[in-house]
């Protein structure tokens, strides 16, 4: 064991470490330029989030489809988490059979609009039989009916500079999608479950359905959609309610 060898080793290790740090800095710059940094990229955990999100957006197709199942594979038990909102605004809607409910679509769009449930149902209906996993660990397969979010976004005309689609719930939750997921063919505004109207506890009258991400992205009881360039001025600026309570923004994992 000569001293020269250990010095050489030390220098190589040092150079490798310095190269690694420089490489990471350059990678972060490039990732920022191409929109590969998730809104909750702050802090030490943000490093992992950024790696996951950037790796998936760079290496994987934006159009890959979540697996579809047969109707015979639909789960007998459709679990549900959380209770419907108790606030007066929502309770009034339930009593009126959602007649006064409107889905507002605003932000960076050419023609802001407010759609009633009937108007959404008159749009082309899409159906998917997909697997939904909760971040807790349980999962189920169900048949969802609704209109593609992309259809509604095309109606209102998303401005080309826009980067995110944020959506808000009567229960105080809100979330957002980047454009690959917002325009994905399995991202629905859902108003039906297993051939019936969406039950109240499953998010009536309309919930989001994001087939390539964990269940919590499929926010229930929708009230408003807003197209944005940045999410910094909504809530804590982390892109969703979930990072504010400790859950990552990107849930494609």
């Amino acid at each position, binding site marked *: 064991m000569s001293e020269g060898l250990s010095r050489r080793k030390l220098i190589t290790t040092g150079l490798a470490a310095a190269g690694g740090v420089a490489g990471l800095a350059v990678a972060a710059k490039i990732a920022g330029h191409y929109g590969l940094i998730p809104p909750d990229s702050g802090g030490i955990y943000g490093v992992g989030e950024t790696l996951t999100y950037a790796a998936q957006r760079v290496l994987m197709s934006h159009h890959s489809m979540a697996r579809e199942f047969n109707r015979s594979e639909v789960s007998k038990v459709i679990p549900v988490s959380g209770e419907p909102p108790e606030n007066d605004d929502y309770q009034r809607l339930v009593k009126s059979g959602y007649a006064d409910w409107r889905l507002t679509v605003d932000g960076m769009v050419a023609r802001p609009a407010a759609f009633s449930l009937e108007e959404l149902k008159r749009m082309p209906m899409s159906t998917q039989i997909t*697997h939904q996993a909760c971040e807790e660990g349980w*999962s189920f397969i169900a048949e969802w009916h609704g209109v593609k979010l992309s259809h509604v976004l095309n109606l209102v005309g998303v401005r080309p500079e826009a980067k995110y689609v944020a959506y808000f719930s009567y229960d105080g939750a809100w979330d957002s999608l980047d454009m690959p997921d917002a325009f994905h063919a399995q991202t629905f505004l859902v108003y039906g479950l297993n051939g019936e109207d969406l039950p109240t506890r499953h998010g009536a009258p309309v919930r989001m359905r994001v087939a390539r991400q964990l269940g919590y992205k499929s926010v229930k009881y929708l009230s408003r959609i807003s197209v944005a360039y940045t999410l910094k001025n909504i809530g804590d600026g982390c892109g969703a309610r979930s990072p504010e309570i400790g859950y990552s923004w990107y849930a*494609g994992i």
Partner: protein
Amino acid sequence: MVRVTHWIYSLSFIGLVVSGIGILLAHPRFYWGETGALGTPSVLDLPLPFMLGGPSGWGRYLHFLSAWVCVLTGMVYVASGLVMGHFQKEFVPASGELTWKSVSRQMWSHLRLKRPVAEDALRYNLLQRLSYLGVVVVLLPAMLWTGMAMSPAVVSVFPFFVTVLGGQQTARTLHFFVAILLVLFFLVHIAMVCLAGFKSRVGAMITGKSAGGKEPL
């Protein structure tokens, strides 16, 4: 390189185990097939409380951060191991070594906690070779595979990750059992280091030097 990656990996392993327990506590129940939830049959119910709205949040953040450290370190380790011949030299049992007789002889001497004589201690013995090989070639890739199979975005591009296993809940269950095997390996590994003399062994694992000469590491 083997030693540097070992210690980085150790940190990420602890991160993965701690955060894995955090995620598990949200739903300490296991299923087989595609789906499973309360109200459906399970294959294993752990006697643990269901803890919602907490540990699985930071658990998930820490799990994927640690997983990235683990995978990136693993790639460096495997590349350098192949180039430098670490695996071929140290892990693959020598021809003729892999007989029932020598395996049972080694097991017996391990069970009696017999210490190896000086020159034998400088190279990995058969049981070490087999268990290290099992961890690197079978268990760690299985963790990665079953982990990928639970990702809705990844399986939308590579459905075979989950279809060959028979379902997303099966992947989750296997992920848990393989993790148990890795934790067992970890505990035995630490116990062996302690038995062999904690100070001198850990010193050797960091510096690569042993009192008797250079380590095979």
